[in-house]
């Protein structure tokens, strides 16, 4: 394969699109130095190549990850695509190449820079998703549970599974401000969709009463003699507080 040190692949920002970049690279025997989403950003010094998404090509690569590496690697790549690590695509690309070479043993190469960085990024995603499983706060508007979050990683697909399982008969919406996406669940089905803005009506008195009850509990349960705000912040960094009921004004 030829290492084109200034070749940049541009794709449409979907996982399928990314898999097509891998496909093209193998078909044309070339190694890109960067893979990015279309953003209108100019690449003056690099040679750019637009990769069209072809679901059949993407499917071939996706299937090959299971066949040549492992089923675990397939899930890993799906998760890696949701992380917020810089150079995410090129790391994933290098991971898949190494996977083709080493098979399932690629996961043992923890001291390799690519494998190490990507494993860490996926763990970071999972950890953030786990945090949000606890820190998501629903406010009820007319029987609909609504929550807003600002995560670093794309945690919505992971949260969607968790909350759909937990509240099968409820209607809920979790809005991700960072990525302007939302998951909407109704008893009939679940959908993850783009959403640029969310405007909410004021909350009613019954809802206010529960906010007050929760704040009262959250405040009372602390033991003054053990006051330790640093420990509190280590476990629950301030970035989460803005969207949690217990820290809202009043």
């Amino acid at each position, binding site marked *: 394969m030829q290492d084109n040190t200034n070749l940049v692949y541009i794709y449409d920002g979907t996982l399928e699109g990314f898999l097509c970049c891998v496909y093209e690279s193998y078909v044309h025997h070339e190694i890109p130095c960067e893979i990015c989403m279309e953003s209108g950003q100019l690449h003056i010094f690099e040679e750019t190549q637009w990769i069209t998404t072809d679901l059949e090509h993407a499917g071939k690569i996706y299937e090959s990850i299971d066949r040549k590496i492992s089923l675990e690697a397939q899930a890993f790549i799906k998760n890696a695509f949701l992380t917020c690590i810089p150079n995410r695509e090129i790391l994933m690309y290098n991971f898949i190449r190494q996977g083709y070479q*080493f098979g399932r*043993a690629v*996961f*043992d*190469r*923890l*001291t*390799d820079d690519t494998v*190490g960085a990507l494993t860490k990024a996926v763990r970071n995603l999972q950890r953030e998703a*786990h945090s949000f*499983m*606890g*820190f*998501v*706060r*629903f*406010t*009820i508007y007319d029987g609909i*549970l609504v*929550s807003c979050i600002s995560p670093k990683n794309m945690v919505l697909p992971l949260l969607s599974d968790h*909350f*759909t*399982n*937990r*509240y*099968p*008969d*409820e209607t809920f919406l979790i809005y991700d401000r960072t990525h302007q996406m939302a998951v909407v669940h109704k008893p009939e089905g679940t959908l993850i969709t783009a959403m640029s803005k969310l405007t909410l009506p004021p909350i009613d008195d019954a809802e206010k*009463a*529960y906010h*007050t*009850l*929760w704040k*009262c*509990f*959250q*405040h*009372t*349960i*602390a*033991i*003054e*003699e*053990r*006051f*330790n*705000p*640093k*420990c*509190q912040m*280590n*476990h*629950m960094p301030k970035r989460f507080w803005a969207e*949690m*009921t*217990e820290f809202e004004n009043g």
Partner: protein
Amino acid sequence: MDVLDKLAILTDAAKYDVACTSSGVDRSGQPGKMGSAVASGICHSFAADGRCISLLKVLMTNQCVYDCKYCVNRVSRDTPRTAFTPNELADLTMNFYRRNYIEGLFLSSGVMKNPDYTTERMIQAIEILRNEHNFNGYIHVKAIPGADSALIQRMGLLADRMSVNIELPSESGLESLAPQKKPEAILRPMALIRSGIEENTSDLALYRHAPKFVPAGQSTQLIIGATPDSDHRILSLSEGLYNKYKLKRVFFSAYNPVVEDPLLPSVFSAPPLLREHRLYQADWLIRFYGFSAGEIVDAKSPNMNLAIDPKANWAIRHLDEFPVEINRASYDRLLRVPGIGVLSARKILQARRAGSLNFDGLKKLGVVLKRAKFFVTCQGKIFEGVVIQPDTVLRGLLSKNDLQMLPAAAGEQLSFTDVPDMARIMGGVPASAFGYLPEERTRVNAGQYEFGIHI
């Protein structure tokens, strides 16, 4: 009194109970039901004291017929009393759960009239939750010592976790501070729950849909520092509880002086938080690192050294077992190295399948080299510049943090530039500095040590 006032009172009365985990059981959601459970547990918030809030931790009532001296709810204390009705409590739990404030309910209670009556009220509340509201989330419930075994059996089929608090780690402590509680009354329900779980396991093997009995296991709590019990006593007791009663967790609670009593530490003494921390570290070593209580403390030195964590302390005393070769050592041996935890030990096993590891690689795996470098070799080599002498090792292991955690009362101020000598640190710092009881009181009760709770 409205629900808000009741919540304030009954939360305040429950806050000294430390267990608030929602772990130990994986249960998927079901159509028609509300809720699920995740084996790892989920923290929903953190209180200003840094403790996790996972469950709605409240008392059914803070009325109590007992007069345990250490307790905020003892009958002789002048404090507002109230009780939730089973319906109020079930509604509150459902509404908190629906908004994702909590992972479930942690229900304890003062003893209203008698243990049986109290237990029945608690069962009523969780029956409403489970059967009327179809609640499928986590429930942790306290067994009230002295309650009828049929009631405990019923409770166990509704709850995920049950616990009976031992509170005081010795019989003499119970006798003087909680004369109405008897060790048998505590250990009997514990044994009942254990055998219930055992029978249930064999039932489940036969019938997949047999109702589950306390699927997340049982736990207990010990109060630290209210009685003169040594770390040795506390750790051997908890080790015994893990082995004989198959407990999932033993929690430690630093005693918070809430009342002036000649038998208790003064209300002006601070809770022994550092001692509690060291006990949890030791507890972790017993549960996950293959240590036995006897390796951490023994009859000769019954209390842990508060200046240094128990694992490092063990390693320094056993320098002859080190260094271990990273590329060949077994998992158990790796776990004994300060700076290597369960996660990094597993990663080492995984990574060395792909190739030999060096110090650079160890760092990438997340091993704390600052500590581990004194105890390991990589490909036969010792970390560059490291001298393995008890004195230098100790110097290297004491972090700034460790030194800061030592209260100033420990005597002379310990500063980082003036590293204390080996003998002083290893000899320990006067125990009285850390919330142990004054020596006199220890002497008065010393004779009663032998009558510990026999398990």
